[in-house]
């Protein structure tokens, strides 16, 4: 059976579609959690995503210097970087957590980015659980 990875996507409402949960017309990503500031995404949430069965976590944050709450995106960047190392020890490849820092006010690139990540993750195969 072809491996169809599940990606959980967190996206910041300020930089990636301020219409929030309303769709931009080209389908909504599955497992989508729009948040007010990527800085609110906790390490616990990412770990629980994997526990719930996700194969990857995508975090869409605002571009450098443009966080509405000053440096929330920077905080998450540091968190993700350290968490990736911890995940490697748990046997989860660091590529499975990805963070993009950019601006997409219409939120119309989200679906494509999730698809791209799915494609990249599928090369890794399913998550190896100890």
């Amino acid at each position, binding site marked *: 059976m072809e491996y169809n990875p599940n990606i959980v996507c967190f996206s910041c409402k300020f930089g990636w579609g301020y219409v929030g949960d309303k769709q931009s017309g080209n389908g909504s990503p599955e497992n989508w959690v729009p948040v007010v500031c990527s800085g609110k995404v*906790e*390490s*616990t949430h990412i*770990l*629980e995503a*994997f*526990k719930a069965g996700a194969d990857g976590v995508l975090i869409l944050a605002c571009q*450098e210097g443009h966080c509405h709450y000053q440096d929330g995106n*920077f*905080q998450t*960047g*540091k*968190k993700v*970087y*350290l*968490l990736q*190392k*911890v995940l490697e*020890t*748990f*046997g*989860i490849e660091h590529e499975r957590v990805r963070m993009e820092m950019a601006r997409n006010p219409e939120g119309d690139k989200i679906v494509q980015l999730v698809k791209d990540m799915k494609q990249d993750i599928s090369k890794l195969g399913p998550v190896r659980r*100890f």
Partner: protein
Amino acid sequence: MAEKPKVAITWLGACGGCDEAIVDLNEALLQVADKVNIVLWPVALDFKYSHIEAMKDREITLSMITGAVRNSEHEEVAHLLRKKSELVLAFGACATLGGISGLANFISKDDIFNWVYRDAPTVVNPQGNIPQTAIEVNGKQLTLPEMYDHVYSLGQVIDVDYYLPGCPPPSDLIATAVNAVLSGDLPPKGATIGPRRALCDTCPRNLRKPARIEIKEIRRIHEVEAEPDSCFLEQGIICMGPATRGGCGETCISINTPCRGCFGPIPGVEDGGARYLSALTSMLRAETDDDARRVIDSIDDPAGYFYRFSQPTSILGTKRPPQATEG
């Protein structure tokens, strides 16, 4: 004369330090020993499992079990004592959280065996023998417990009534726990015996912290001369205190060693390591992204720091054991 309550103490995947801690009660131990009837204590007394098997269900008032569950014997004994006891106390970090042995969950059983019995530099094992669970010798069956490929905490294997944290639990906490049982003044089931706040609450260095802690470099404890009065975090030394339950009396802090987290997360937090990770990175101050990464790269074993005692009870480390939980 009313019968003295029966108490069982045993060790599963343990180092014996918890038993030492019980002995360290000194005179208090004698008083306790007077009030109870110890029916099992492998390190000190000569009772056998068969003695326990012969008892009625729930005949033992209190079983104090130390150590993690790593092999089938551990699991069997855990189930046995659960069956025969009114109350089970998970005693120490290994029973409560999984303990240091839990770090073995980061590698597979095969990798462990290959290293220990084949690849380590000092191994001499020309025939490539590895442990078996059963073998026949002179017509007799010899068995060994099966080593699982995962380390479990006691609570993941049986139903536990109370948890006593610490590596090992300090004497005063042990005395509190035992006296509570003996007097019948019991906390709600499932409670951990100890304070509810993190270590910083009682740490003498806490009040001297600056208004904003900014970590620019991370150092290991042996790389610097740590100031005995300032917070370790302020000095760039990883101290698990903020995410660790208090109650140990700051024994490590008082000898100028940072907390390693043996008391586990505070109540309500499932994964202390994950919370600590967020807390640590938020204190990191770096001008550029590259600088931030450089400092993070200098942490040599983050998973080891954050999950030293708690891997098996962490979000990703938790696993269901082969046998169903009985209680």
